[in-house]
Structure formats: C-alpha cells, structure tokens
C-alpha cells in the first residue's frame, strides 16, 4: 500500500517563473493538505483540499494556488516565484479532514529558486 507520493523530488526554477507540484494521497484518503518548510523551520500550513474545494488556507499570498482532482490527487501551483519560495513543500493526506494518527506526510518536493 503506497503512502503519499510527491513529484518531482527536486526542482530548480528561476525567479519569476511558475511551478506545479503534484501529490497522490495515501490509498483511502480523500483530503490533501500542503505545507511549506523552510530550512531549519517547522512546516507552515498553506491550504487544504477536500471534495475538490479549498477548505482552509494559511497565511500565504494568492500566488499560491491549488487544485484537487476527482481521484483525490492534488497540485500546488506557485506563480511569480521569489527567492523566498525556496523550501521543502510537503503534502499530507488524511480521511475527511482529520489529522493526527491518520495524517500521512509525503517526503516532499525540494524547490530551489535562483
């Protein structure tokens, strides 16, 4: 049983470009949350998707957007990249917006903006 799968694992982009990160949730999970983790920091909540709608959003600008597909997979899009967007982007899946024991993280996508 596969856990949470994220792609790509590493990515280098130029300032001003756009990027799309992808996440496949754990089998049986229907909710996807995205987190940004800067080097040496704890993960910061970006937003959560359930039933193909954004249900919650953290303190991130509109340059960060997302989507959830009928198969529960999700994308995170970041427009007009800034150097400060360099971070590890984590996807976490769960059942019906729950967290805790049933909250499974992927290994993340390391984004470097140059």
């Amino acid at each position, binding site marked *: 049983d596969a856990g949470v799968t994220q792609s790509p694992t590493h990515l280098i982009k130029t300032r001003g470009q756009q990027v799309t990160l992808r996440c496949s949730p754990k089998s049986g999970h229907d909710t996807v949350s995205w987190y940004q983790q800067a080097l040496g920091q*704890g993960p910061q909540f970006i937003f959560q998707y359930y039933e193909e709608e954004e249900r919650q959003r953290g303190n991130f600008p509109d340059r960060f957007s997302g989507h959830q597909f009928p198969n529960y997979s999700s994308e995170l899009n970041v427009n007009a990249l800034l150097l400060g967007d360099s971070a590890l982007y984590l996807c*976490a899946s769960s059942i019906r917006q729950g*967290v805790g024991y049933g909250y499974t*993280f992927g290994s993340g996508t390391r984004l470097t903006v140059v």
Partner: protein
Amino acid sequence: GESVGLHLPTLSVQEGDNSIINCAYSNSASDYFIWYKQESGKGPQFIIDIRSNMDKRQGQRVTVLLNKTVKHLSLQIAATQPGDSAVYFCAENRARRSSGSARQLTFGSGTQLTVLP
C-alpha cells in the same frame, strides 16, 4: 498571537539514556497536540498524540506529558537509540470554527536530537 515553540533547538544524549524534548504553546484553546519525528530527506512521521483532557499518554518507548496550567508539553524517549536521531516537532491541532470540522497543524521550529555512541 498563536505560537507553538520549542525550548531548545538541539539536544545530544548518550545512547541508552532517556531523552526529554520540551515544547511550549500559547493558545489556551488548543485541544490536541501531536509529536512528529522528521528524519533527513523525509516528511514528518507521527509519533504520539495527546488530547487536552489528558495529562499523560504512553506509547512504545515514548511518553508525552501535558501541563495545561503552564501550557507546556514534553516528549520523553526511553533508552534512546541511534535511530532516534532526527528533528522532533510538536504540533498543535485545532479546529477552526470557520472551517467546520476541518483542522490544520501549527508546528514549532523543532529540536534536533543527536544520539551519541
């Protein structure tokens, strides 16, 4: 403002000793806390959780203590092993009224645990 923080950024212990990692939180409305372990190159992994109506919870080699009076929780790891070396985060999980039952995690900055041979 709301915050979840750690007392120390790094902790070194001898293999076989017990480890104690501390965490402070500021929101008295917090009702659920989780400890995560993050190894290099991996995402956070669930260790143990505790609800605000409990003071203590035990798992395999781990114990979490919650002191609501001083808004403090700790993670105790018994007989620390080399495989325990990682960054440990406490996270607050609280439902937001505007989102119904939806919950999000608020993480502290983490403590790097190093197990010495």
